[in-house]
């Protein structure tokens, strides 16, 4: 026991004296949350709109007012011809154009039919899809208010409700994603680098010649990163609840349980990487390329898994973050209990057990 404590203390010294790294590790979740939350926001908010209405009449004005009044849009340019619209798109002054046909109001009154053309800047297709959806909604609403019974009597109007995330806040999606990524980064990457560093420096030899039990070496390497991960988990939770206003709908204890399980899986991944490599650079490459990219791309954090080709969908089953992120979404956003995430938990337990068994077997007590 004395051995273990002496060694854990040493590990904390290593980390705390490397001020740059410790700052990076502690600030990373903050920066990521801020980046994803504000800079890379996929939410539609104050999208600039250019309108073109040759005949200014009652109906066009009302629709334009509604668009302008909504929090999603901001009517920035009033165009007089199609060249103005082109210019607005080119200069980045607008992302969406609304073109009303001539005599819009009259047509609507007399024939019950009128046309609005919506032109979207689709360089970011996801954003374009969402703001087109909002614009159509505003127009449909106007139409319903105008004639709740007569004109639409033959039409089926779907009423859309966004469950769990009525405001379509992207934070609901990326908070679990950032959690999944940070844990992998700190546990897997930093742990593997910390162990490999001892190999590279030659201090591992001294430890192997000493009566230090290998399991103690491993435990003490893991301990500080475990603490760091828990701190980061707390940071992300606080930021998400108080800054991004994403509430924890389910039980916090369930969320914590799943997160601790995921930390365990990530730590055993780090251990495995450290047994496979002998240089810090290699450890960094493997964790960077082998873990970060799958976590970013295949976990459902950015791209929905359902839309992936079958092969990638299959691969994504082996990305622990996929299961963790799913579990966090279920508990944190949907507010369901542990019972709803039994599959995720089962997969993570299985992964952790397999990884830790392999890496403990491979962790060499003797150097060849």
């Amino acid at each position, binding site marked *: 026991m004395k*051995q273990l404590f*002496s*060694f854990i*203390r040493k590990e904390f010294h290593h980390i705390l004296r490397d001020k740059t790294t410790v700052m990076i590790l502690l600030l990373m979740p903050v920066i990521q949350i801020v980046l994803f939350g504000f800079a890379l926001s996929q939410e539609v908010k104050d999208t600039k709109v250019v309108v073109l209405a040759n005949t200014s009449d009652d109906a066009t004005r009302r629709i334009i007012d509604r668009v302008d009044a909504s929090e999603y849009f901001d009517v920035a340019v009033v165009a007089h011809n199609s060249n103005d619209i082109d210019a607005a798109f080119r200069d980045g002054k607008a992302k969406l154009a609304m073109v009303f046909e001539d005599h819009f109001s009259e047509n609507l009154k007399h024939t019950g039919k009128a046309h609005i053309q919506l032109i979207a800047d689709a360089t970011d297709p996801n954003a374009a899809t969402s703001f087109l959806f909002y614009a159509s909604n505003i127009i449909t609403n106007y139409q319903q208010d105008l004639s709740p019974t007569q004109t639409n009597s033959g039409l089926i109007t779907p009423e859309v409700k966004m469950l769990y995330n009525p405001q379509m806040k992207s934070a609901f999606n990326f908070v679990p994603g950032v959690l999944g990524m940070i844990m992998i980064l700190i546990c897997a990457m930093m742990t593997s680098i910390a162990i490999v560093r001892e190999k590279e420096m*030659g*201090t591992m030899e001294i430890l192997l010649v*000493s009566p230090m039990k290998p399991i103690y070496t491993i435990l003490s390497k893991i301990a500080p990163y475990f603490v760091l991960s828990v701190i980061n988990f707390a940071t992300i939770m606080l930021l998400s609840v108080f800054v991004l206003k994403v509430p924890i709908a389910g039980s916090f204890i369930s969320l914590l349980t799943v997160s601790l399980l995921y930390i365990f899986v990530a730590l055993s991944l780090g251990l495995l990487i450290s047994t496979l490599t002998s240089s810090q650079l290699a450890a960094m490459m493997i964790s960077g390329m082998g873990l970060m990219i799958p976590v970013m791309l295949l976990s459902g954090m950015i791209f929905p898994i359902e839309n992936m080709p079958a092969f990638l969908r299959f691969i994504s089953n082996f990305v622990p973050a996929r299961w963790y992120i799913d579990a966090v979404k279920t508990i944190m956003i949907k507010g369901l209990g542990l019972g709803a995430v039994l599959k995720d938990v089962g997969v993570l337990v299985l992964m952790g057990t397999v990884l830790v068994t392999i890496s403990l077997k491979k962790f060499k007590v*003797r150097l060849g």
Partner: protein
Amino acid sequence: MDTVIKVENLTKRFGDFTAVDNITFEVKRGEIFGFLGANGAGKTTAMRMLCGLSIPTEGKGTVAGYDIFRQPELVKKSIGYMSQKFSMYEDLKVWENLELFGGIYGMHDKEIKIKTDELMGRLNFEEERDQLVKSLPLGFKQKLAFSVSIFHHPQVVFLDEPTGGVDPITRRRFWEMIYDATASGITVFVTTHYMDEAEYCDRVSIMVDGRIEALDSPMNLKRTYNAKNMDEVFQQLARKSTRKAD
């Protein structure tokens, strides 16, 4: 005098390559045993087997009375080790390194404290006590590394090219520390390729291509090979080598 290291027909092969070829020798308690050889002659591999870092392919050996095959854990408790790579934690303070290794070898806090005070005084390290190891000059680090390796008073200490890269005066001082250690009953097993250091050993073995070609006191070796100094002895033997140094 009793025997501290006893090795019989020890062999280590890596695939087709025989790194250590059937070596046999004994080291007596309190002796300074020099283990010489050109680069790639197999001395580091042999030493690693004695420390329990590497499993012998054939042969048997005991260190401090424990079998290197069956009781590696007991062997590890009774030895100290200092490698050619500098092996302290650079981002720990001097006293923290001592405390860490004391802890790893199961020493009590009180014992660690007393021995640390005593050591700092003896080495005149009082001012450096609170400094990070990386800020110390190489000669200091080597002295410290040696002190750490014998901090728990092992029966044998293995030194793998302990004085690489320092000037002759610093080396001489280092050897004074080695003499002090043997005076307190510690057996020293040292590899080196500085031939002046070979002269300081009680007995010297010279390895060529994985085999021990000569083993005697420096004086007897010089007489046998009709040489002025150990360097000439070494040159005569090393010439037999067919293995390419790395």
